[in-house]
């Protein structure tokens, strides 16, 4: 799936990837790839600035740890993040229903 198609939906996808539990940046990207059966596979490096923005917005919180001698930042959903994820789900359902209805093939009445 092309990155442009994700415009406006990336925040919801990242929040959904973190719903099951805290993850570090690379694991967020991997989780996103797995939950979409490989259809959404973003360049990993581009996930980090989006995570930083979500953190500044208070939707996720980050914490540092040391793993294998490397400093690692892990992110977890905040209460505000869970609420925002619920909102993203609702608005996506509404949007998807509207587009599905609009694109549904119709049988036009025959003209004589």
């Amino acid at each position: 799936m092309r990155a442009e198609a994700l415009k406006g939906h990336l925040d919801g996808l990242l929040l959904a990837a973190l719903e099951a539990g805290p993850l570090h940046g690379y694991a967020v990207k991997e989780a996103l790839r797995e939950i979409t059966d490989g259809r959404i596979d973003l360049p990993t490096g581009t996930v980090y600035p989006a995570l930083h923005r979500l953190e500044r917005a208070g939707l996720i919180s980050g914490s540092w740890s040391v793993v294998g001698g490397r400093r690692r930042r892990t992110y977890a959903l905040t209460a505000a993040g869970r609420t925002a994820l619920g909102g993203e789900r609702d608005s996506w359902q509404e949007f998807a229903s509207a587009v599905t209805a609009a694109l549904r093939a119709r049988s036009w009445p025959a003209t004589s």
Partner: protein
Amino acid sequence: MAGHELIAAQLAILADRLPAQAMEELADGLQEAYEAQLAKLHDPDVAARAAIDEFGDADTITAAFVRESPWRRMALKLLTTGPLMGAVWGLTLLSAQVWDWPIPLAVRIAYGAVLVGAALTLLTVVRAKHAYRRTRIATLVAATALITLDTSMLAAAMSMPSSAVWPLLVAISASLIRITATLRAMPAALTR
């Protein structure tokens, strides 16, 4: 697990462009990607190239950081509110007959030049795609210039006699809001 020279070279390119805190995360992520590819491909050179491909090239990553930069957002806000501020102050100065104020021509020209310079700097920041550090410095300089201009305009306007009270109150409020919002956004942005 040891790294790979290609991974180290890629991180060196990114380190020249991005803040240190982001680099720690990127280094961890790229090493993680390399280890995952190595477990799958069993060839260090092929795995390093696959990891870099999976991670995105330096330009793509830098562009993503620039796009999400708090400095770029600050520049965008200052730039988009600029015309409104100009209109509010323009109306106020016309109502207050600014041409009668005892301000030397050189000061007026310098004020205008700094204002145009700040606007052009912000425009450059908003249009930049691959210069994260320059974005940060340029926005900081332009925001500081605008705060200085706002403060000096407030001081001048309040020290001059004027019958245009309402336009002046609106203009003073607008400038105070812009100064406060910019100063509040700066500490958070300085950490990025």
